[in-house]
């Protein structure tokens, strides 16, 4: 279909983008466009102005930064997949990126765009939440760091102000695994489970089990008090309200979460 009409501005810098956003309360950022453009084509999303930050190539990078890996918000999924720094220090993120969509989508989609879009079925949001990542944003009032746990506030909602632009994502060095149950290879997760060791703790995240990515805190607490993976995994759906849709019922999702959490923990 054809999107509703909108105005378009190309930002030459993050600060320019911030200013452009300030000029229109129905403005949205355009990065890779692979979350936004499909929504616009179906007219679910109708921004009056698109601020294009897709040319800000200085926001495409992965490098070590102290005890964290710093990833530029405009880094493409395909770049995450083949990045040697990530492969060495946080392969979990690269493995999850490799499961997003298809090769064409991965050539364009960005980590910042995907995460900011906030689809509860998105993989990267779960990874960041599981890793206690930090998200750096720049706005009219300057720069701030938002913890992943505070970033995802609702379905397609996040803690960013209207004029804030995600510039960087920081993840710890961590080992882990991401299991994604899908109907078809290129689908959104029916249920996704991330398990990672972060600073000696085992942390578990869930995709498509609620209105945002979730941490399976009951599972983590059970593990911390010595439960086996199987026993801890029995709590995987605790406190969750998984949706029922054409892919799966709420009950089947809960079942999948329990199975996949057990398997992810056994793999760790």
């Amino acid at each position, binding site marked *: 279909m054809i999107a509703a009409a909108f105005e378009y501005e190309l930002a030459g810098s993050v600060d320019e983008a911030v200013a452009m956003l300030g000029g229109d309360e129905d403005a949205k950022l355009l990065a890779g466009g692979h979350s936004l453009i499909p929504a616009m084509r179906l007219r679910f999303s109708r921004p009056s102005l698109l601020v294009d930050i897709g040319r800000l190539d200085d926001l495409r990078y992965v490098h070590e930064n102290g005890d964290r890996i710093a990833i530029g918000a405009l880094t493409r999924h395909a770049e995450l997949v083949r990045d040697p720094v990530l492969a060495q220090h946080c392969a979990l993120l690269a493995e999850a990126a490799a499961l997003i969509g298809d090769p064409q989508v991965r050539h364009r989609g960005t980590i910042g765009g995907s995460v900011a879009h906030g689809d509860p079925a998105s993989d990267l949001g779960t990874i960041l939440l599981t890793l206690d990542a930090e998200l750096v944003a720049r706005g009219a009032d300057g720069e701030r760091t938002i913890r992943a746990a505070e970033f995802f506030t609702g379905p397609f909602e996040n803690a960013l102000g209207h004029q804030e632009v995600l510039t960087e994502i920081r993840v710890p060095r961590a080992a882990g695994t991401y299991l994604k*149950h899908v109907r078809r290879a290129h*689908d959104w997760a029916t249920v996704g489970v991330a398990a990672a060791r972060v600073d000696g703790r085992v942390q578990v995240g869930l995709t498509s089990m609620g209105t945002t990515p979730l941490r399976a805190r009951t599972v983590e607490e059970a593990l911390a008090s010595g439960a086996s993976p199987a026993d801890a995994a029995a709590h995987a759906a605790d406190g969750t309200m998984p949706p029922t849709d054409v892919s799966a019922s709420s009950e089947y999702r809960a079942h999948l979460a329990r199975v996949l959490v057990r398997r992810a923990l056994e793999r760790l």
Partner: protein
Amino acid sequence: MSILGHRVLRKEDSRFLRGEGRYVENLPLDGAVAVTFVRSLLAHARITGIDTTAAQALPNVQILTAADMELGPFGPPPFPGLDPGMGRPLLAVDRVRFVGDIIAVVVSDDRAVGVDAAELVAVDYDPLPAVVDPHEAAKDEVLLFPEAGTNVAARSGSPEHDEKLFDGCDVVVSGTLVSQRMAPCPLEPRSAAAAVGPDGRITAWLSTQTPHQDRMVIAGTFGLDPAQVRVVAPDVGGGFGAKMLNVEEVLLVWLARRLGRPVRWTETRSESMVALPHGRAERLDFTIGGTREGKVLAYRLAALQDAGAYPVLGAFLPNLTALMASGVYAIPRIEFEGRSVVTNTTPISAFRGAGRPEASQTIERALDLLAAELGMDPAEIRRRNFIAKDAFPHTTASHAAYDSGDYEGALDLVLRSVGYDELRDEQRRRREQGDTTQLGIGISTYVEITNGVDETEFGEVEITPDGGAIVRTGSFSHGQGHETTFAMIAAERLGLPVEKVTVHKGDTDEIAKGTGTYGSKSTQIGGAAAGLAADDVVEQAKRLVADYLEASPTDIVLDPALGRMHVAGDPSTAISWADLASRASDDGRLAELKAEREFKSAPSFPFGAHVAVVEVDTETCRVELRRLVAVDDAGTLINPLIAEGQVHGGVATGVAQALYEHVVYDDDGNPLTGTFVGYAFPSAADLPSWEAVEMETPTPLNALGAKGIGESGTIGATPAVHNAVVDALAPFGVRNVDLPANGENVWRALQEAKA
């Protein structure tokens, strides 16, 4: 050496590979305006008002509704027996009956503005209760057509039950098979354009499978002589049974006449998912009974067909299900009762298999269920019930007259090819070890009917001035490769190289008559007709050569290897097609080297056997198809390369129904799978490679020995995969898994078995 039976690369490929496909959307049409349809957002409602003010305010936009036209039902009813009161008006008058029903038409210079305007058309709906479940619809509580007094659109078979039907049966089992609603999803969404020429003739360019039939319906709808209508089907990007004339194309013609300007429309995919007819949606309740030795004595089927909001071809598919109910088995007693009911959903029409997949899905499930009850191997129970190889022609208890078949041969071949015994060993091992991932092996042995309603096809062959040939066919290939296959047939008969034979199709001004392509009938009637016309041209050529050589026509022979004719025994007199054509042309006699034929045939019955091997993760309930071995016997294969391609595509669709796809509505009739995100159309990553095994048992019905093959893969594959999944879960007490047999439905089956 005959070219038939060779893997000749396709002549038509070049334009598609280069991106020069002549799809309707690609055709230039000067001055054409864009058409956008305003479609109902509700499944069932009265329309109490249509406000076009806001829409009309956009530049160069015009909105038309039912108030702007003289209306009647859409064309003649497709089959006798449908209540004309259930006909679909071209534009909704005061009621909409499914999400997607057309309420208004927007005409605009710019396509994007058309979409903007369509959105601004404000429709006042007075919602009515929607009925989506055919079972509910059959209660006749919520009526879609109050004047009709019922939601039943058609009946088939007989409601009479013989209470003694299962006498003599040691075992009787029952079950239900829901052949779930599917969306055909040709990659090319429909596209149409229409214009009225200076002479008043209408030309319609349509993405259709049936150009000639469309022309008749368009002419009939507007009260025109068919000679006043030209339909051009250029290149069409897939049809699968769904692309036959619908209301949109007729509306385009109406608009072209009314506006006096060319008009064009291309549906979006979201539009197509509600507006292009769906397939399947037939529920079969079955009972099968047999001896304890596994001999089937009786089979009863009750079909409930969802016809969708306006009954069309889909309402009659249970007749084909009934005809093919007993499949490859010699079942002496069959009872069938069918009803088709309207519901507030997209209308159902033909989709690859059209009534026959439902038959094979049910009988194959029933055989497996009976086998399980008897503790018998599913291959063995089939052997005990096949119609024997020497029993053809064979008429079944449901009155299908099978031409030729070797069902046990197909089963033997497929079991050997797949390594059946080794697979059962592996399965046993995994069961004993209690592996999380279990193996399932599923068999289907099927027969299908092609050219199912005894149709006739037209073929014309003409020698060109340079000594080549043109074949004009009434068949209409939209991916099936007739430009190659029919060229091969004519080339073989004429003794010309394939490169010198060109196939023309799709333009009703050029092709005198035709029926189009569906029902897997084209090679067996269209190819056969072309072959006969070529034979006629050879005979006529011999008479011409005889004239030139002052010999008797009976003394002239064609040397097909060299493409020359000469007096028998005296090759020095040989004259090539090129020389003959040139001379005839000079003499004004080229028209003698042209012939046309129509060929009518009874249906033929391709058959086969498929084995599917699945792995089921009994914890996540994910099913993966590891192998599918397909034996598909379609008689003599003209071009095995193309035939195999048809099997591959057919099998993929069969597997898709078994494991992935399902069109779903909520209780209010809102489509929940209206895009390729929700509708699980599989990619290459979701399917394995196919193992297609050749088998050819010719038919006596035409000179080629050819049956049809286009739908066989689909008909064989779904039950094989379905049976495989149930087989994998048998140790858990599972006797049935609903289609699609994957994920949620597997989990449910396991839960129910535990309870």
